Structure formats: C-alpha cells, structure tokens
C-alpha cells in the first residue's frame, strides 16, 4: 500500500470572483441542497504551479504548460535566440544563425505537431473583419490541447533548434523524437499529464486535488451589472480582465488534497530529496496561495486559516461530508473547524484509524504552525 499525505484546509476569501465559468459567473456547485461557491481544482493547481514558492523550490525542475510551443519555436528559429530566453520573454542576443520565415514556420509546425494536433487556422468568411496574417500564422503554430513540457523536453527542443540552425536542413524523423518519459518536471510528476497523441509519455498524477467549495451556502449575484464594464471596453485579449468590481460573495472554503507519496517518488525517478521538497512546496503553496482571478480588483490573497494534515497508508478520504449540512451562524470558521474535527472523530469510530497520525494548525486561535505541518508531511516515513 502506498503512503498518502492528506491535507484538509479551511481558507477564507474576501469578496472575489476567483474562478469564473464560461459565462463569466463565479463557479458554483450544489451540495447538501444548497448553492456553494466553487474553485476548480485546475484553477488551484495552476495557482500553485505558478507561485513563487514553486518557482523558487524547483528552479530548473518545472515544466511549461502551453498550446503555443510551436509559436515560441518559430520565434526562436526566426531570431536565433535560445528557446529558454524566448519562453521567458528575455531580451537576449542571438546564439545561432537566424532562419528565414518559410522554413521557420514549416519546422516549427513539424516540431509542435509532435506534441499535439495542430490547430486549423480559421478562414475568414466575414468581409468586415480582415484576418490579421500574423494572428493567423500564430494560430497555425498552436496545438489544440494544452501540452505540459518537461524541462528535459524543452532542452531537447532547444538542442534540436541549434542543430537545425547550423545544418540549415529540415528536421529528420529521428530528430523529432523529442518526448521524454524520464527526468520529468516536478509539476508533471505531481499533476500528471495526458498526451492524446503519444500516450506512452503520459504520467499519472501523484497529487489529487478536490474542487474547493464553501462550507456555507452562497447566493451568487447576477452579473449583468458587472458585465457592463466588460461591454464598455473592447480589448481583444482581456475578456477576463475587464469584469470589474462585482459584489461577488465571499466564502470560507474547504479544500482537500491528497498526495500519493510513493507514486510521486516513482514519477521523480526515485529522487527522495526532490520528492520531499515537492511535498513541502506543495503544502506551503496550498496554505499560502490561492487562484489569482481578478487579483488586481479584489486583492483576494488569503492564507489558510486552518490546516489538518494526515499521513498513513490507509485508503484516503475527503472530509467534505462535514459540510453536507451548510454551516450557519456568525462564526463560520469556528463552526467549520468543529464540524471537521467531529466528522474525523466519528469516521475513526466507525472505520478505525484512517491515518497513522495528524497535526493541526489554526491561524485563528494561534495553535500549531506551518513549520510543524511541513515537518510532519516530510518527516520519516514507514
């Protein structure tokens, strides 16, 4: 049986629109017959992956998730800059000969096509809207699905770009074997990846993240009023950026995540040190970092108010049933902590111990500490 690390957190967000659905409303879910606010797991994972905590902990071990690798490769070929500099938007001097337009497009398409199906550029039917050729070219270099590239793969692509630039000839079939199963990024090892085109290079996620939902019921305001800001502007790329101040409901969220430590270590080629560093950074990010949605308008930055961490080889379980009945009253946090503790105790009564041990941290009462939680989750294991 694998060893699991489970994290149960209560995080309070002030009024915000953290995670929007495709109509621009905050995401919701019904639970226990009441509407709750919801933050999707994708949104949480993205926030953690992009956090400074991750960047600092895993310098050189983080991959990149993008549909636009082909576009970046094209830019690198066209300018002669290194791929890493192009990806990081660094102004840098060329490191190799620049490639002419036509070849750059064709080669970039060949390379991108290895990671996913290339998008078909839209042809214009509407005479009013002139198609921007630059935009169309970019479209033709993007793939349809997000692809998660590991650092080893990015290095392999860059290496190939160097050889192409020197040789001046189009990539051969063997040059295009760019996918790597080993030396995967920490983020890929944690959250997995799915490549429809090359399933052999898929990676099972070692970290499962539940959608965070409020422990209480929430009435989401209709956002036609909010939408006015969005209507008044016309910025091509800022669809999400212009939804302004809405009095979207605040919420106290229950968030749950579960790490299969053995699988994480396996995904990281058995690197124990990196595995512990991964667990530590993940827990710290989960405690301190939330989705960035509308950060500028809402500054909804929040640390977790309460954390319960568990370790053990028992089958993991979420404690969301604690909030099947929406929490009420004027002190959500205390009530929610009580519900969580009670549910855990009652579950142990009927099932026996569900973990080998646990620690708590409560920022409202000042009990416990994040350091203790981090020491616990990375401590010696059986």
């Amino acid at each position, binding site marked *: 049986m694998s060893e699991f690390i489970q994290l149960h957190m209560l995080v309070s967000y002030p009024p915000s629109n953290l995670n929007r659905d*495709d*109509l*621009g409303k905050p995401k919701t879910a019904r639970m226990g017959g009441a509407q709750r606010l919801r933050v999707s797991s994708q949104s949480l994972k993205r926030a953690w992956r992009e956090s400074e905590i991750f960047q600092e902990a895993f310098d050189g071990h983080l991959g990149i998730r993008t549909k636009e690798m082909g576009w970046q490769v094209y830019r690198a070929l066209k300018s002669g800059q290194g791929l890493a500099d192009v990806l990081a938007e660094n102004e840098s001097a060329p490191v190799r000969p620049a490639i002419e337009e036509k070849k750059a497009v064709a080669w970039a398409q060949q390379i991108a096509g290895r990671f996913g199906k290339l998008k078909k550029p839209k042809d214009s039917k*509407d005479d*009013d*809207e002139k198609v921007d050729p630059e935009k169309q070219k970019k479209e033709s270099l993007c793939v349809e699905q997000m692809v998660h590239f590991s650092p080893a793969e990015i290095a392999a692509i860059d290496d190939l770009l160097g050889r192409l630039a020197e040789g001046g000839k189009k990539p051969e079939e063997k040059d295009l074997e760019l996918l790597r199963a080993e030396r995967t990024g920490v983020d890929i090892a944690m959250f997995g990846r799915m490549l429809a085109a090359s399933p052999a290079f898929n990676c099972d996620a070692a970290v499962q993240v539940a959608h965070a939902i409020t422990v209480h019921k929430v*009435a989401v*305001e*209709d*956002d*036609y*009023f*909010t*939408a*006015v*800001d*969005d*209507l*008044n*502007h*016309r910025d091509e790329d800022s*669809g999400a950026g212009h939804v302004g101040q809405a009095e979207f409901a605040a919420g106290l969220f229950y968030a749950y995540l579960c790490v299969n430590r053995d699988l994480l270590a396996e995904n990281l080629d058995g690197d124990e040190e990196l595995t512990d560093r991964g667990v530590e950074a993940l827990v710290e990010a989960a405690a301190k970092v939330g989705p960035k949605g509308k950060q500028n308008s809402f500054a909804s930055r929040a640390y977790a108010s309460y954390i319960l961490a568990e370790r053990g080889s028992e089958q993991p379980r979420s404690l969301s049933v604690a909030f099947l009945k929406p929490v009420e009253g004027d002190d959500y946090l205390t009530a929610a902590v009580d519900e969580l503790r009670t549910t855990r105790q009652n579950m142990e009564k009927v099932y026996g111990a569900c973990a080998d041990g646990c620690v708590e941290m409560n920022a409202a009462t000042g009990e416990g500490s994040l350091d203790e939680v981090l020491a616990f989750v990375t401590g010696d294991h059986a």
Partner: protein
Amino acid sequence: MSGHTFYRIHLKDGAGQDPAFWRRVRNPYQVHKMVWRIFSDGSHKDRDFIYRLEMQEHTPVIYAVSTADRVDLDGIWRVDAKDYHPALRRGDRLGFNLRANPVRTKRDEEGRQHRHDVVMDAKYAMETRDNIEVDLVQQEGFAWLASRGERLGFSVEEGAVRVDGYRQHRFRKPRSGRRVTISTIDFTGALTVTDPDLFKEALYTGVGPAKSFGCGLLLVRRV
C-alpha cells in the same frame, strides 16, 4: 445627447420589512409608479428609462437603463450606477436575458389597431385549448424575437434561445379604471450583433411594447 447609465437598484436594508412598502407594489401598475418615482421628480415628462424588476431572495432588484438622473423620492433605494456605452462590433456574440411583451398588431375592419399576445393569438388560430403551451411559447416567442431582431440589429438561432415564463398580468388603471392585460415571456440565450448602431439603440430604448411596465430591457454580457 447625454450618456446612458446602467442602474442596479436594491432596497435599502430594512425597507423590505415595512409592510407599507409591499402594499404599494401589488401589481405592475403600482410597480411602474414606484420605479417612476426613482427617476422622476414628479413633474410631467416623457419616460426616459427602461427597467426590469426581479425578485432575488424575496426582495426586489431593479435593473434600469436611463439618460435621466435618478431622484429616488422615497429614499428607500440603494442605487448602483455605471456608465453604459457598449463597444460593440458586428459579429459580437452576447449572452442575453430579456423579459418582453410579445404582441402582434392587427387592424380590425374599421381600421383600428389591436395588439394581440402572440401566444394567445396562435392558440385562437388553432382553435384549441389543449395543453400545448410550452411548445407554443417557445415557437411563437422565438419567431417574435427573431423578427424584432432583424429590425433591432441582432440575430438569434433557434437552438440558442430558451423561451419560457409565459405569464399574464391583469390589473386596472386606478384613475380610469380601465382593465389592462399584459403578457410577458422570458428569453434567455445568446445573440449575435448584426448592426451595432441599431443594436445599441435597442439596448438603450428596449425591445417591444409595455416598456413602462418593465418589459423590453435587454440584459447582455460578453460570452
């Protein structure tokens, strides 16, 4: 011309607890007067607002678009306001919500105009009282909206609009005692802007008749 403003108007805290408030808003005519008192200082003038009343968690919320400065004679409202000057282009796709009074105008033998609710009209035409209203509302309502849209600068597709909430409201005008019947239908879905100028006019002045009774305000957002 002065600019348009989009309003969201809530009752102030506590105002909803006052039974007198509810006695004053028992029918659409009273609601019409109530909203009028928000936008007018009482002197006679033309209506320069369109609005929609919704009940959210048992209290009224009014959305309105107007060129008028609000006055709020009663002092019971919390008013949020935003400049409303949508930047739209042909081909823009918008989510929308509309409560409208869909009628067809017909002339009788003496040349007088009569307005017929499109649903009742279809029912009479089919000489039936069977319970086929749900389909009828969708069909007739959609046809009505599509033909309006042509003139108002937008197009709708059958699959992308839900038409429901058919209701008839009956009341008497207090002074004349005249009986008034208004039916309303709710439309929800997506539309495509075909003529930005005409469409903006529709956003500012509403769609269809019975605007003084809370019909015709198009609520839109980008999708």
